[in-house]
């Protein structure tokens, strides 16, 4: 394995409830790269995100995943988060009764503590979050509410981006973050992602549509079909897919 890889997925097979969802998927991501994963419904796009984030129900049956040279599959979801993996959920979970701000500070400080840093006090933390809310054109009142409880689709996705900006991941996985967003929200969310782009941080953008990639320019585009990557290319591949749909991929492979 070359040491300059952030993520090295080798021939991974995974199943959920006995159903095989990834069937020998390989993908390499270097620091600073933006990779887009496209593909038809049921191709395994969300399965890939969930395997990387460590959801229990997704069992890896074969293959290896190295993250920063370490065996990712040995790490619990919280350890993955501490080491810089962040997944923006396709459907952020509503948690009534858990205060949004309190949750964010718990997450933020859990990561700091795991990395040997002092936890941040409530007041400076709130100032930091409020500033990020401004960047996301998000009403800070959402911080006072229960986590995602009763948030609209767009508000939930903004809240995901807020967490991403707070946690400053090394690898951010956006699992169909664009689904159900209007054009304004799409712009705001893309701006958030673009503002975080640098030579160290990588993104895995999982999406159905080319539209998001007009805002977030990927370095690489991969087509995922039937549990593996069947075609890879540069940004122009996304345009081709938009024009022709996914049917031709199946014919070609």
């Amino acid at each position, binding site marked *: 394995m070359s040491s300059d890889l952030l993520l090295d997925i080798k021939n991974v097979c995974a199943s959920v409830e006995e159903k095989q969802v990834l069937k020998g998927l390989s993908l390499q991501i270097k620091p600073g790269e933006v990779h887009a994963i496209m593909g038809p419904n049921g191709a395994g796009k969300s399965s890939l995100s969930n395997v990387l984030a460590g959801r*229990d129900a997704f069992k890896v049956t074969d293959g290896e995943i190295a993250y920063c040279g370490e065996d990712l599959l040995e790490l619990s979801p*919280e350890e993955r*988060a501490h080491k810089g993996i962040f997944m923006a959920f396709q459907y952020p979970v509503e*948690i*009534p*009764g*858990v205060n949004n701000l309190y*949750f964010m500070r*718990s997450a933020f400080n859990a990561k700091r503590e795991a990395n040997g840093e002092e936890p941040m006090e409530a007041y400076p933390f709130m100032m930091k979050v409020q500033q990020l809310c401004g960047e996301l054109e998000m009403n800070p009142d959402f911080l006072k509410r229960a986590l995602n409880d009763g948030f609209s689709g767009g508000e939930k996705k903004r809240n995901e981006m807020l967490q991403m900006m707070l946690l400053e991941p090394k690898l951010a996985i956006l699992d169909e973050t664009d689904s159900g967003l209007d054009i304004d929200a799409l712009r705001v969310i893309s701006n958030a992602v673009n503002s975080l782009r640098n030579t160290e941080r990588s993104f895995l953008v999982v999406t159905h549509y080319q539209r998001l990639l007009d805002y977030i320019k990927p370095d690489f585009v991969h087509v995922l079909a039937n549990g593996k990557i069947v075609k890879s290319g540069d940004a122009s591949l996304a345009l081709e897919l938009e024009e022709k749909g996914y049917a031709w991929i199946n014919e070609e492979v």
Partner: protein
Amino acid sequence: MQVASFSPNWQALLDQPLISDALASWQKAARAELPELRFPSRRDEAWRYVPHRRVPKLKPYAEPSQVKPRYDHPSLEWDVYRLQCIDGVLISSDVIKGVRITPLSKCDEEQSRFVAHELSEKDAWIRLNQACLTHGFLIEVDAGIKVEKPLVIIDHTTSQVAKQCLNARYVIKLGEDASFDVIMHQSSDSDVLVNTVSVIDLGQRARFSSLRIQQMHSEALCFHQQEVIQGDCSEAHLGQFLLGASVSRDAVHVVLQGTEARVELSGTAFPRTGQFANIYSHLTHGVPHTSAKQQYRSIVHDKAQSVFYGRVHVLPNAQKTASYQHNANLLLGQRAQANSKPELEIYADDVICSHGSTTGQLADDQLFYLRSRGIPENQASALLVDGFAGVTTDPWKDSPAYDFLSDAIALRGKEE
């Protein structure tokens, strides 16, 4: 079970000094009746699951010769009035303008007639309370008086009265347009049985709230029965949080007998391993245009048991009643048990009544969401447990006891 079976020297129990001359005949009547009474058991629906076999052999109450006040009570940091009662002995009571706080032993004839209120629920525990009263107060709030700060009632027992049976009675009367808030904190350091009766009488347009936090010793037994009588346009908020005791039953009976009377009830029963906690609520909608909202939860550790029994009774003339009840239970172990029994008895036809009950475990997708953000699993579970109880603590956000209550619940979630 009769009184003789849980107290070997029950005669000594009945020979305790009477609390006052003014209440003597009332107490004697109960003493005469008690030996023949059967204590509630599995045969009584309202007490069905209460493990009476765990009621130990009890000693009668003996007033300690020396009682130390609590200087460490959390309420010392709150902006409140305080009434402190340790081991059944009154330690201190703040003076509140327009409010008379009278120990039951000092009530005059007229006050005593009010204290001797006959509850609509009649069982042997209530009779025992009447017969063997150890302490309690009559609190009268004059008409039109709006008390700005809550009164914290600290009812604490120490190991000085271990294994004894204490019977407390709190009678609170609000005049018309009065407003009054009470925070009742009941705690103990040892295995006592505290059998409390509360009677609340609300005049027209009176507003009252009572937040009851029970944090008894893990071997203690705690029974509480409360009757709330509401006049026209009165408003009550009642909270019941059962965060201690080996066996705990907290019952409330609200009698909405004035039109436009409103009541909101919320509470959480949180028994630890091997413990039993029972919330019993009984609402009587007696006249037209009354409303009630109930939100109860239980969080049950492994091998613990909770019971929610919620009875809504709408009398034939009580048209336009609106009564909503919800109970949700969270099981934290394979052998945790939650029993939920909503019971609607409606004799009027133009009413809106609803009830719902759910029981489940911590949701995997919620746990994963929190963990994926770096929150360790045990902390994530604790957050979800707090969040689950949050629905019942939210109505108390403005109370000075809110942080204390939230912390107590959070701590209980981490105890196991």
